[in-house]
């Protein structure tokens, strides 16, 4: 017990939590935007891979770090567009299309990786984002290391939480997205385009997801590895439900998961000798499931989620 308290009081633990949460924040916001418009995007896992791989490769090819971020966003938007076309005007099963996009985006990313680097055993490294040090603030006790040793991408993620909240709750666009996810006829009857809104939401949401992937190769690590996304996309799908489709709660959920994960790593070193490491590795997922079970019962699903809409049909 004392060990846990020790860990919880250390600034490095909280800094790690925020770092681990960052890709999840991007992913969960992306999934939230898609689902608010009424479309589930299971392409998220593959879009993470595509973002991770394309951003890193762009930097390696000399695009600069922010150039890499943009490339990752565009790659996400591209795969999002495929999912959008399949599920919105064509009205295909959102589950099947999403899983298809995940498989497709993952293999395309691996393909490009292998084509560009046919016979390397370890990938070339790039110079990743550095922590944003801010004079004075960075030297504050506790707060300094937790917040001011994060990279620009973490700050971007936090900013996105506010931006997405603002758009969803304070702009006409947000109102329209919420309406199309609840009853597409409501926006159709007001002369707005159901297809336009949904496709737009999926494309933008997917671009955000890809930034989550880009964080992995351009900030958390400095290279691309196979399997490095490792289920983070799926976690985001669960976190959206946990967050009841609210950006603020999404941030909280991502941080909670980040904290579990950071705790698990530290617990391993503390009591690892007595308990098998697999237990610790599984802990964040188990705890997420428990949290989800508690939260999901009250979750209010967008009413039109998973239901395709066709013009001129009743």
């Amino acid at each position, binding site marked *: 017990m004392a060990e846990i308290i020790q860990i919880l009081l250390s600034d490095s633990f909280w800094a790690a939590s925020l770092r681990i949460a960052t890709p999840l924040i991007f992913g969960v916001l992306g999934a939230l935007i898609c689902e608010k418009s009424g479309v589930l995007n299971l392409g998220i896992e593959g879009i993470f891979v595509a973002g991770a791989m394309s951003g890193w490769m762009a930097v390696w090819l000399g695009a600069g770090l922010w150039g890499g971020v943009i490339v990752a966003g565009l790659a996400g938007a591209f795969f999002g567009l495929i999912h959008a076309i399949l599920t919105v005007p064509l009205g295909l099963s959102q589950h099947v299309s999403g899983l298809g996009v995940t498989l497709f985006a993952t293999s395309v990313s691996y393909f490009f990786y292998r084509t560009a680097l046919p016979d390397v055993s370890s990938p070339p490294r790039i110079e990743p984002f550095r922590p944003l040090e801010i004079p004075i603030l960075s030297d504050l006790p506790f707060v300094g290391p937790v917040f001011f040793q994060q990279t620009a991408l973490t700050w971007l993620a936090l900013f996105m939480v506010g931006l997405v909240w603002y758009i969803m709750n304070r702009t*006409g666009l947000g*109102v329209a997205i919420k309406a199309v996810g*609840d*009853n597409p006829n409501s*926006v159709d*009857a*007001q*002369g707005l385009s159901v297809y336009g809104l949904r496709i737009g939401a999926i494309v933008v949401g997917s671009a955000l997801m890809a930034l989550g992937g880009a964080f992995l190769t351009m900030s958390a690590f400095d290279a691309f590895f196979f399997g490095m996304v490792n289920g983070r996309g799926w976690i985001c799908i669960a976190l959206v439900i946990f967050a009841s489709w609210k950006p603020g709660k999404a941030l909280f959920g991502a941080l909670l998961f980040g904290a579990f994960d950071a705790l698990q790593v530290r617990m391993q070193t503390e009591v690892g000798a007595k308990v098998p490491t697999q237990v610790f590795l599984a802990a964040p997922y188990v705890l997420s499931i428990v949290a989800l079970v508690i939260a999901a019962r009250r979750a*209010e699903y967008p009413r039109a989620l998973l239901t395709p809409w066709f013009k001129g049909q009743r």
Partner: protein
Amino acid sequence: MTSPPVLHLNGLTKTFGSVQAAQSISLELFKGEVLALLGENGAGKTTLMNMLFGHYMPDSGTIDIFDTSGTAKPLQLGNPQAAIAAGIGMVHQHFTLAENLDALDNIMLGSERFFDFRRNKTKAMQKVQKIMDDSGLAAPMNIPVGKLTVGERQRVEILKALYQDVKILVLDEPTAVLTPQEADKLFENITTMTKNGLSVIFISHKLREVLAFSNRIAVLRHGRKVGEISSKEANERKIARLMVGEETEISSRKKMKSGEAVLELDNLTISGSSKRESISNVNLIVKKHEILGIAGISGNGQTVLANAISGLLKPSSGKIKLESEILISNDPSNIIQAGVGRIPEDRHKDGIVGQMTVAENMILEDLSNKRIQSRGLLNREAIIQHCEDLSVKYDVRGPGANASARLLSGGNIQKLILARVFEAAPKLILANQPTRGLDMGAAADVANRLLEARQRGSGVILISEDLDEILSLSDRIMVIYDGELKAVETHDRETIGLMMAGEAA
């Protein structure tokens, strides 16, 4: 007609598969005019208006809109945005509201720019307030639409159309869920608005309001326009003959001795999250061979009461007894098994499963029937046969047993539900607003079926806002107001009307 035309529909045609919903329909509308569009359920009224508003793309035909100088401009077809831009507003037959948003957001949807740093809700609210004052239609603006009653939602729909500064207003059965007083008020205000140049097309099955408030009447039958008369020259008989070619009459209610109690509510109380979701200390008895009419303006607890009896809501206290057995509530399937047949208020949402076929919907509440299954396996052919038999018996018309139920017109959906309920020979029938939105013929059918059930020995609870319906069908009448149910000893219209408005008689 001396005033200039504002709209011209030329030969609009639309087919859905094998259904000819509209066949070369032409129609004119003049400035400041109120045109009523009449026709049986499934005649093609909604289809025609959906083509005007751009929801449906006509197979052939054109639409011309006249501007103030009187020159005709063709309207771009199949595009609601073009229709709105041309000054056309439409109130749809079925709600087009996002239930997760409040009424004001629904009203503002589409008429504001996507990126304004501050949405001007205050200004929009002022405009809505003015429209509410002018039109006499009020609804709460700041709670999610999902929490509003059907009547309130209908008012939000109308406010939404008026908010767009329309020149031509289309109302598809706007009064189906309004009280008579509200409907009259609405039409009075529409009459005022037409003086200022608004032209109105409205669809209704209520001949009284059609005759009172329209200038001209156009009648559709089986997708064709079969007549047009000036309202001054029209009377109920003439219109009915045009609409159906014949008249249906409600058989009269014969005196009958009621039997022992079928349903008994004993101090039933439900405390919902708000007053409108609650009922308190409801006591009632329904006997065999008896129709108990419950009158009241919607939103006074009818829905809660009906949901409690059908097991969708758990009572906070009190008992529900069916033939003196206490019903385990909170379990709808149990209650259906026990012999309660339900005709729900929102037939589209709670009465059918729209994606499933007509035949499947027909057997939905009776899956264990040996006629359609053996050892848990359904027999497709028997199901379709069963559906076809019942379709003939109950006159359900539509695209066939294998079509999705959502494609049926409102009246035929109701007949489907009647067929399902009546075939189960229930002890108690719970009919909640059963004739809402039905044409005269279909409404008479429903009334006759309820009388027939009474004859057969069922107890019937008839919940309705339509006082005429209550008065003509009920053996006993109770009034629900603000969650409280009171017995009325008379069949006196005025007394009951006052009680419905909350003024104790």
